[in-house]
């Protein structure tokens, strides 16, 4: 710990703390621009200078003011002044310099009112400028359809260029010229050529980089910011949706012409989402929920919000009459749906009905949906998985599964079968930061080359679909490699306890012998402990015995020597964090078994369980809620044993037998056994991997009800279409792949007569003879905890705590899933089929996620489809 007094107030912080952070922690504001917690320190703007009058540093430090953002405090006796007359004068001087060539276009600047330069000038600046000369010419330009650049407002903090390089790995932004002519730029004459995340806009403390899509749509005080969670990938970034204040006159109340025009601009975009933003970790002290992404959003999160405002959003129910879908009232539509579904239930039995849920709707809605199917329909034919090929029994995340933060702090990471840059951008950025900041060893294995592969020399690229074989190859290399690494560590630790080594470690008496001895003993027992925990289970041995690295690597199409080298890079780590992606888990043949095998292997190694990435914003939540044919809420296997207690809570008999999964339902529908289907919040005709079969199935169905925000490809085939609200219009929670439950809030009312999914479910349940009552999301939460035995202790306070990031339920509930018994993988079956030499791999891209983004002008502009 380091002991300091700042402005006379004593404080203790951990050694290695940045002085500016120590001030922040005490609530002392130190103005700054170039400091940014995630980025390398550069000390460029000189805004944060303070006086250090004492401390364990060379005396030269006391002679002139020091940058608090680059001063790392260690040891005792620091005395720091942030409010001395000298500091006050230099702040005035620095702000005067920054404003000299600043265009002062605050009245038309998007950042006006929330600008760090404005705020710092307000607090610390001179009120006047002494400049009598011309301002420097600085350029105003557009960097493409997303980002605008106004160099006249730039404070040259280099946050944007560093973020682009250090966090995104893109290097699309750089600096040109020098001195007062220095400017930020992309490649000359070209639009930005990058992942178009727009994070440069976010981190810019001033209005130099702004969103072209927002561009003077509203002043900060005319906006309402709704904190919520992104609806695209399973990383679950927190974000704010900007809308205009709903209060005020609808039509022009002012007689005066001038005010008329003002009012037109002021109220023009009401009822629309104007922008999506993250939470800037700015120099200004603000307390708000920042999630685990802080300022980060990817292209989809930041720019694919237009879908909410889309003119083709469904605004009223549709009912098929004489072969045509026609507008209807809610009572008509509900009655039509209830009648159609009841008829099938009565004539063909409950198992002729099925429900396809969604990995996008909230936890509470998912919970109610599966409850609806299980109780109102009376069947377990329910599934939320639409795009996956492999629909084996799902597993819950355990408490040792790494989180995004664990990856950020990790020193050894293995990524398998993930297009992670495209599909899980936040997770990827944290891995990049781990490599760059902690020098973590990184191995990337898979058939898709993602940008993260640039961060390592160990990129193992296998044949498409051969991810599983690569996993076994890696395991065959890792097992001996880990053993020898651990033995080597023990040997080294033993050597360090020899008298000569101890003598040397005292550095000629500088360090006392007792300390040296104790350190050496501690290190030795740690090494011995690690090797004692290393024990390959019988299951693992069973799989590995009789196989060779050469064989497995050959099947994967990877050089065995590369696999060995990669294994060496991570084998010795006390904890290697493994991340498994969609390519392995649901696309590659045998991927699931390989993942089970890895989980068992990790336990043998004393490593945490591998993290399993999922596809959608609430893929985890939908599974947790039991929108699955074989699992009830809380991963309880379907069957009489678990159905019994549930029936008591729900007050209705819950079917015991396992239901049909998506594939089985589609097949059953095509064959005429499944007669009625209720699809909520998904568009199988676009996302389901067997299009033809599904088309036949939909045509053959007696009755199809679709609940969606758009008249989707699937909805066109429906008998009844319910217009549903989107995530921007709902209260509830999403759970990201980590198992982090986070709060979703409505920014707008649903368009027209559209309703939230839970409202529709309640109405339909009523009509089908189950008197459900509308309940708040909190009430549903309580029911989930009671029924599922998970998600306990999730309160509004815990969800909105600005110092936390939602509730990580597997840790909260100390959840530890059982290992699955391992079978014998058949390597030859994994290697593809000679008759079909081409392999089609589907997945999400940088600009598109699921089918929703195809409605959005942001991604369409970035990458036309």
């Amino acid at each position, binding site marked *: 710990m380091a002991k300091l007094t700042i402005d006379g107030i004593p404080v203790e912080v951990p050694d290695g703390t940045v002085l500016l952070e120590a001030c922040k922690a005490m609530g002392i504001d130190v103005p700054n621009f170039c400091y940014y917690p995630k980025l390398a320190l550069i*000390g460029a703007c000189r*805004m944060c200078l303070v006086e250090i009058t004492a401390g364990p540093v060379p005396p030269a430090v006391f002679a002139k003011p020091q940058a608090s953002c680059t001063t790392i405090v260690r040891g005792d006796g620091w005395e720091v002044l942030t409010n001395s007359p000298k500091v006050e004068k230099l702040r005035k*001087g620095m702000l005067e310099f920054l404003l000299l060539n600043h265009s002062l276009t605050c009245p038309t600047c998007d950042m006006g009112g929330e600008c760090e330069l404005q705020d710092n000038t307000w607090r610390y600046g001179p009120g006047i400028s002494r400049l009598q000369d011309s301002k420097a*010419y600085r350029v105003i330009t557009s960097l493409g359809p997303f980002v605008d650049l106004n160099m006249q407002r730039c404070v*040259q903090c280099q946050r944007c260029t560093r973020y682009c390089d250090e966090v995104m790995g893109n290097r699309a932004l750089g600096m040109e010229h020098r*001195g007062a002519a220095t400017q930020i730029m992309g490649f000359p004459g070209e639009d930005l050529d990058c992942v178009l995340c727009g994070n440069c806009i976010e981190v810019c403390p001033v209005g130099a980089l702004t969103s072209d899509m927002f561009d003077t749509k509203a002043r900060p005080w005319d906006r309402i910011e709704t904190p919520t969670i992104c609806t695209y990938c399973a990383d679950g970034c927190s974000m704010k949706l900007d809308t205009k204040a709903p209060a005020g006159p609808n039509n022009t109340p002012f007689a005066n012409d001038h005010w008329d025009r003002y009012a037109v601009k002021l109220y023009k975009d009401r009822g629309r989402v104007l922008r999506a933003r993250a939470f800037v970790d700015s120099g200004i002290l603000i307390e708000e929920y920042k999630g685990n992404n802080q300022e980060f959003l990817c292209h989809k999160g930041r720019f694919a919000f237009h879908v909410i405002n889309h003119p083709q959003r469904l605004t009223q129910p549709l009912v098929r009459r004489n072969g045509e879908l026609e507008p209807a009232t809610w009572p008509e539509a509900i009655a039509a749906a209830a009648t159609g579904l009841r008829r099938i239930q009565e004539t063909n039995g409950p198992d002729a009905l099925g429900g396809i849920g969604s990995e996008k709707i909230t936890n509470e809605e998912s919970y109610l949906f599966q409850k609806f199917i299980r109780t109102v329909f009376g069947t377990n034919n329910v599934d939320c998985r639409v795009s996956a090929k492999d629909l084996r029994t799902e597993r819950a995340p355990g408490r040792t599964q790494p989180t995004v933060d664990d990856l950020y702090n990790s020193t050894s990471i293995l990524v398998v079968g993930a297009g992670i840059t495209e599909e899980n951008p936040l997770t990827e950025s944290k891995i990049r930061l781990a490599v760059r900041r902690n020098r973590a060893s990184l191995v990337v294995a898979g058939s898709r080359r993602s940008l993260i592969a640039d961060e390592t020399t160990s990129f193992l690229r296998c044949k498409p679909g051969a991810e599983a074989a690569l996993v076994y190859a890696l395991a065959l290399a890792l097992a001996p490699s880990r053993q020898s690494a651990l033995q080597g560590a023990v040997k080294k630790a033993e050597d360090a306890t020899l008298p000569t080594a101890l003598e040397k470690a005292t550095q000629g008496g500088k360090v006392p012998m007792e300390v040296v001895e104790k350190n050496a003993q501690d290190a030795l027992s740690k090494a011995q402990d690690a090797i004692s925990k290393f024990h390959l289970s019988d299951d693992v041995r069973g799989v590995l015995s009789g196989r060779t690295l050469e064989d497995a690597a050959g099947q994967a199409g990877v050089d065995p020597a590369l696999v060995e080298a990669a294994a060496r890079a991570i084998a010795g780590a006390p904890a290697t964090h493994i991340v498994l992606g969609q390519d392995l888990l649901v696309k590659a043949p045998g991927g699931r078994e390989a993942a089970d095998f890895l989980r068992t292997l990790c336990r043998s190694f004393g490593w945490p369980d591998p993290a399993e990435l999922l596809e959608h914003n609430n893929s985890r939540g939908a599974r947790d809620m039991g929108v699955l044919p074989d699992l009830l809420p809380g991963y309880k296997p379907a069957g009489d044993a678990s159905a019994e207690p549930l029936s008591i809570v729900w007050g209705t008999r819950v079917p015991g037998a396992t239901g049909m999964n998506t594939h089985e339902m589609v097949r059953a529908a095509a064959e005429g056994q499944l007669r009625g289907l209720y699809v909520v919040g998904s568009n199988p005709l676009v996302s389901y991997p067997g299009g033809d079969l599904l088309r036949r199935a939909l045509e053959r169905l007696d009755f199809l009800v679709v609940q969606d925000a758009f008249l989707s490809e699937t909805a066109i085939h429906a008998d009844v279409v319910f217009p549903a609200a989107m995530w921007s219009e709902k209260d509830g929670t999403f759970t990201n792949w980590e198992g982090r439950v986070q709060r979703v809030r409505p920014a707008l009312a649903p368009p027209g007569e559209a309703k939230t999914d839970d409202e529709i479910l309640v109405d339909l349940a009523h009509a089908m003879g189950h008197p459900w009552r509308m309940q708040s999301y909190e009430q549903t939460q309580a029911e989930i905890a009671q029924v599922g035995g998970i998600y306990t202790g999730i309160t509004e306070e815990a969800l909105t705590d600005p110092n936390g990031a939602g509730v990580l339920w597997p840790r909260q509930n100390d959840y530890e899933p059982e290992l699955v018994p391992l079978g014998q993988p058949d390597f030859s079956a994994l290697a593809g089929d000679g008759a079909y030499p081409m392999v089609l791999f589907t997945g999400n891209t940088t600009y598109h996620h699921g089918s929703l983004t195809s409605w959005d002008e942001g991604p369409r502009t970035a990458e036309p489809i």
Partner: protein
Amino acid sequence: MVGPRLYHYLDVPGQHTLEVYERNGGYQALKKALSMDRATLVDQVKAAAIRGRGGAGFPMGNKWGTIPPGSTTIYITCNADESEPGTCSNREVLERDPHQLIESMIICAYALEHVRTCYIYIRGEYRLGAERLNQAIQDARAQGYLGDNIMGTGFNLDIWVFRGAGAYICGEETALIESIEGKRGQPRLRPPYFPTVMGITNKPTVVNNVETIINIIPVVLYGADGYKAYGTEKSPGTKLYCMSGHIKKPGVYEAPFTVTLRQLIWDFAGGMLNDRKFKTLIPGGASFQWFTEEQLDTVMGFDEVRAAGSNLGSTGIMVMDETTCVVDAALNLVHFFAHESCGKCTPCREGTRWLEQIIWRIEHGQGRAGEVDQLLDITDNMDGKCFCLLGESAIVPVRSSISLFREEWDHHVTHKNCMVQRDYRMSSTAQPH
């Protein structure tokens, strides 16, 4: 080579060729060094206390001592960026005696052992120098002085010439390293980027000026004691003084550190031009305090000049006579700094430009009352607040000339003209924009 004289053979025709260089005793020091024990060699360098000629005067041996023990990859980089105004001693060596530098670098590399690659970062404008260096490297390699297994000792070394792109800041050692890494030339944060700890690709890197490095030859040939026979105790050896301005014979002069300014001007450089009256001078390039008549007897050693209130710097001695307008001179120098500011930090980027704008107006009869004090206030807002020494240096000509010749500045502001009878204006008449 006779005595520790660096320029001894400079005027010999063809000295830049390997043949003539060898005829004049070239590569004898290398042979001797290769036969020496590394520890002895390092001790000799430390004992010789070769002061860094790049500006700071930090002894070369001490710099070696800051390399973390156990480092297995070390780079040596020669700073030949020589961009300080009035400074041109390196150019003479680079163009006319390049083998001297090559030989010295090989000796340094051999002494430090874990050096496989050296760089010479040469000012972009020194085209001839770069050509001659490249030729010299090629010839030395052909002769077995460079490359693999140097002279049968098993020691391997390569030297690469890296040409700058015209930025003064790239002479600053950390900006130089950024530039060698292919990045934008901006100084790095220290700590952690002390070159000898985290330099090129985060490996220990010794950066030394050309003139510093070539001092290793006399140290090897005559030993530390022989080397220290010249100069003062704290500043041993000789120095290459770059004389420019209103003097009869501008040029580079080699003299022991015991020489005085008066001797340099009147004995070496032939006295004041047109025998006019001496007014002021800058002893160490653009960046340091000006001297007047009173300091002319200062001994030109590192510590002596510091004691007299300035700095030896690059020993670019710029002499000004009575026809010099100090506002004009300050404008010229501030223009240089404004033009060369890298733009990384606020006070230097914005401050230098502003200073130049105001001084230009004062010089051109458009100054306003109070602006001289305002200039001082602006320099105060920069002083000690810039990221590197460039910005800190930029305020020196303003402060120094105002403190020494305030009445001239005030005259400019009140009378809108100059009180000095001058022959010509030294600063540009173009208004800064």
